[in-house]
């Protein structure tokens, strides 16, 4: 019971940081909104999609997934910052369950995504995004997005503890997330890539997430090299498997690393 309390207190702390430093919230929403606008108006005209409603329909799921993927960097650098300031030492000297600290942190950090996703959805609606599948499926899509961010925040914990220098951590976060989000179907169809890359791009968890969300939002996906394979046929199931695997690996790994950190 007390572990639940501890998790709540830590989650609240993460959320309170957001209200105390509104810049974090503002900039974490400005960037994706800017991406929506840039991609919509810069590339939107030159990428033909063969879908009703145009590029913005394909783009929005891509940008949603990319944005939640950045949770990894946010969690990692926040944790590295606390480590550097010795705050983690204080937490670790308290008589509380050690995993409560990391669990609360991943929860709090992921909740930031709720706000960001809502703002992005509104921006998308403003520039012509019109999911055609009905509210329930759209909401299921958002649950998937939230869960994806949550799973990746566990990777963020691991990166934050392993690198421990907040500035380096930021970069590591980007180095991990940029190739994953661009070597994917998020912004352009994979069919334009060299064939070898198509395999990577289509098996990439970011792509299965994007493909899954597109399905939920009522769109068709186009696959290249892997057309007809398991991930292309079952992107949602594949995404759920990826998230399960990420959490199965990184939750115990991160908690163990946390307990032994600074040894």
């Amino acid at each position, binding site marked *: 019971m*007390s572990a639940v*309390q*501890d998790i709540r*207190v*830590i989650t*609240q*702390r993460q959320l*309170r*940081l957001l209200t*105390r*430093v509104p810049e974090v919230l503002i900039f974490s929403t400005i960037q994706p909104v800017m991406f929506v606008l840039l991609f919509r108006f810069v590339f939107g005209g030159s990428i033909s999609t063969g879908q009703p409603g145009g590029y913005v329909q394909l783009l929005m799921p891509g940008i949603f997934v990319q944005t939640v993927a950045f949770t990894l960097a946010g969690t990692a650098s926040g944790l590295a910052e606390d480590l550097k*300031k*010795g*705050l983690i*030492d*204080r*937490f*670790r*000297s*308290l*008589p*509380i369950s050690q995993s409560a600290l990391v669990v609360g942190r991943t929860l709090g950090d992921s909740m930031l995504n709720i706000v960001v996703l809502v703002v992005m959805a509104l921006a998308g609606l403003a520039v012509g995004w019109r999911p055609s599948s009905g509210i329930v499926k759209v909401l299921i899509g958002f649950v998937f997005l939230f869960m994806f961010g949550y799973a990746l925040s566990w990777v963020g914990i691991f990166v934050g503890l392993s690198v421990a220098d907040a500035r380096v951590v930021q970069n590591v976060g980007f180095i991990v997330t940029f190739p994953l989000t661009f070597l994917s179907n998020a912004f352009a169809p994979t069919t334009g890539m060299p064939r070898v890359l198509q395999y990577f791009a289509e098996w990439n968890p970011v792509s299965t997430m994007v493909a899954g969300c597109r399905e939920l939002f009522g769109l068709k996906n186009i696959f290249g090299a892997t057309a007809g394979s398991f991930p292309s046929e079952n992107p949602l199931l594949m995404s759920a498997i990826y998230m399960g695997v990420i959490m199965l690996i990184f939750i115990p790994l991160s908690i163990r690393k946390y307990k032994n950190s*600074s*040894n």
Partner: protein
Amino acid sequence: MKSVIAESLVKTYKNGEVKALNNLSLDVEEGTVLGVLGPNGAGKTTLVRILATLLKPDSGRASVGGIDVIKNPDKVREIIGLSGQYAAVDEILTGYDNLVMFGELYHLGKKQAVARAEELLERFSLTDSAKRPIKTYSGGMRRRLDLAASLIVRPKVLFLDEPTTGLDPRGRLEMWGVIEDLVKGGTTLLLTTQYLEEADQLADEIAVIDNGTVIARGTSDALKKQVGGEKLEIVVNAENLMKTQEIVARVTGNKTTIDEGLRLISAPVTLGSNALIETLRELDSAGIHPLDVGLKRPSLDDVFLTLTGHAAEVKEEAK
């Protein structure tokens, strides 16, 4: 009863290249204050972190309040308070939020956590700045808040790692006052410091550590004795220097040293006040009027110099 026991602690870094602790043993009697005195890199922080369950030693044993820190860290955490070398509070949150958060993490319940936070803010004169984020606090306020956070559940054993480093003289005096009050309440305290006067002022006993091991242990008086007893010091006019030295050497029967720049003659003495009176009488009959006379007990600086072969301040930052 010993509240803190450390037995042959060893902690190495970089595959054994850096020996942070090298067979360190010490203990603290319940309800007393042990000052752990050592220069940069001596191993103070490493020792505190092991005792506070944050770090596992390579070998050796330690217990706090009779509980083994390696086997039962969770139990130890229930009875200790820690204020680390660098104030570890949440910069972004306010002082009030910090204390309430830590109170809740100590499972006080929201109401009690709030009450305790207010009480501590009051006691550490932080009520006025309670609603400001910590990053607007001065170094001294930060330290006080950090100490307050370590006192939330009235710990049986408190660890303070260099509680006054970085404070100005006024901040230091304030902090000393706070610590002295605490100790009156019966808390067992292990305090590390680089300041010799601080150990002298606050600690019942002092353990001097260097290169990861205890090189001397005792009350500050006992340590001073170990270095040698009192010294007679006399300052005279330059022309009387030689004559005075003769007199001092004769009276004390000991070797004298002369500092020509300060025109200071000094010699170890056994019965200080007798030697002082005798010397003054002799000087008087020789027509010499000393500018300054006194009996000096060795400072802890002298203790350090004698024990380690280097002064406390001059050793390079080891990091």
